[in-house]
């Protein structure tokens, strides 16, 4: 972070005022500023001393004549800082991406069970769907349509839900002291095979 990010505007304004004074600041001007900004008395006095020394014997026509068209290491580093800061500023301004709607979120356990029955699945498998633990790109369009029909929500809502990052429900219980991280997503087939479904249920879901 640059010092200019933290320096009060009133202090930088007063410094600019000193810098714009004729050839060098004097006691009268400095005292006037100190009376106006007593909270910056020490900083302004220190700056005025440095400015007086810096301006000593110098004309106002300072040299800013580049003598090369080559980019030096110092300029390259400064450009890198510019781009990094630009990225940070843009990121800070970008609207926070809203998490897609979870169509399962408001469903009580009874409704989740009913959905499981209609899908010819079981509750553990439905929990995986709810918590986005199954990779969306391993799901057939038939499977997604079936979920859409059972949930009675638009297809894009279902796709956006499955495509989003896995989530850990706030009310989830776990035994360890630290909250567990959400693991990477499973393929649909692995989720079907690993949810305690019967062979018949597995076959039905895999054929959707």
């Amino acid at each position, binding site marked *: 972070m640059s010092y200019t990010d933290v320096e009060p505007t009133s202090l930088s304004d007063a410094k600019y005022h000193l810098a714009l004074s004729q050839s060098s600041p004097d006691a009268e001007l400095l005292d006037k500023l100190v009376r106006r900004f007593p909270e910056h008395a020490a900083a302004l006095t220190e700056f005025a001393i440095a400015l007086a020394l810096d301006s000593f014997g*110098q004309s106002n026509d300072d040299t800013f004549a580049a003598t090369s068209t080559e980019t030096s290491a110092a300029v390259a580093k400064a*450009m890198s800082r*510019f781009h990094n800061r630009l990225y940070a500023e843009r990121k800070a301004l970008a609207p926070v991406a809203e998490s897609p709607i979870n169509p399962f979120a408001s469903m009580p356990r009874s409704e989740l069970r009913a959905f499981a029955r209609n899908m010819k699945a079981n509750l553990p498998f439905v929990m995986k769907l709810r918590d986005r633990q199954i990779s969306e790109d391993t799901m057939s369009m038939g499977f997604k349509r079936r979920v859409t029909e059972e949930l009675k929500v638009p297809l894009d809502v279902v796709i956006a839900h499955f495509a989003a990052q896995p989530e850990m429900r706030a009310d989830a219980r776990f035994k360890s002291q630290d909250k567990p991280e959400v693991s990477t997503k499973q393929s649909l087939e692995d989720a079907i095979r690993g949810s305690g479904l019967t062979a018949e249920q597995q076959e039905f879901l895999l054929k959707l």
Partner: protein
Amino acid sequence: MALPLKKRYLDGRNYFRPPAIEAATDEVLEQDGETVIRRAAIQERTSPEYLPSECLVHLIRNARRLDDEATMSLLIPILLRRCESNLRSRVSSELPNAESIREEILGQFSELFAADGAGANPHQLDFFEAHFNKAFQTLRIDIVRREERKTVKHKYVPLPDESQDESDFDETVLKYFTVEPDQESKLVLKQLGKALNALPPDEKEAVVLCHILEYDVESEDPEKRTAATICKVTGRTIRNRLSRAAVRLSSFKERIQ
């Protein structure tokens, strides 16, 4: 036409560009991108097409407002090269970390463009658009002071005991503190400035306060700011510091005679 500046001077007026800068900025804003880049790259200050640094600041800020990264990436290095040239002469190579101080100044300056319009001081670059040299001088002084405090440990030659006696600044030296520099005195002033900068901090502070800013050493008026009240020491201490500085600067007097 260039957008008016929003920052205000302490007297309440809005910052304004000097007429020559305003005219040059208006002119370049009418030109196509290729011409602008060609003109920005001109280094000869005597060329009628040379763009003052204030204009470059305006063009870069314009590109920043339009999120035109390509133009910013072309123009900022041109301005930074000018600044780098200034820093080579104004940040003494005698400082042990001169290179890193110059890099820090360029880095912080470039960040001002990225952060333009945001934060607690969103119009800070208005100062650069109106008075580039003064604005860059302020930035440079601040960063040099900060960096010096972090790293520079001065070693000063102790003075003989008799230097504790009160010695006055010689008139030959004193006259240079108050004269307006002309061509003839410029070189002497440059040397004197170098000699002043080489003084120990407390002596340097006393000399600048009393002989450049023209504060009294002390006063019977308790409300009056003096060198003694500013440094939070007695008037006698200030006089001692001035005496020691006078002894140290006596070699300078010999050089100019």
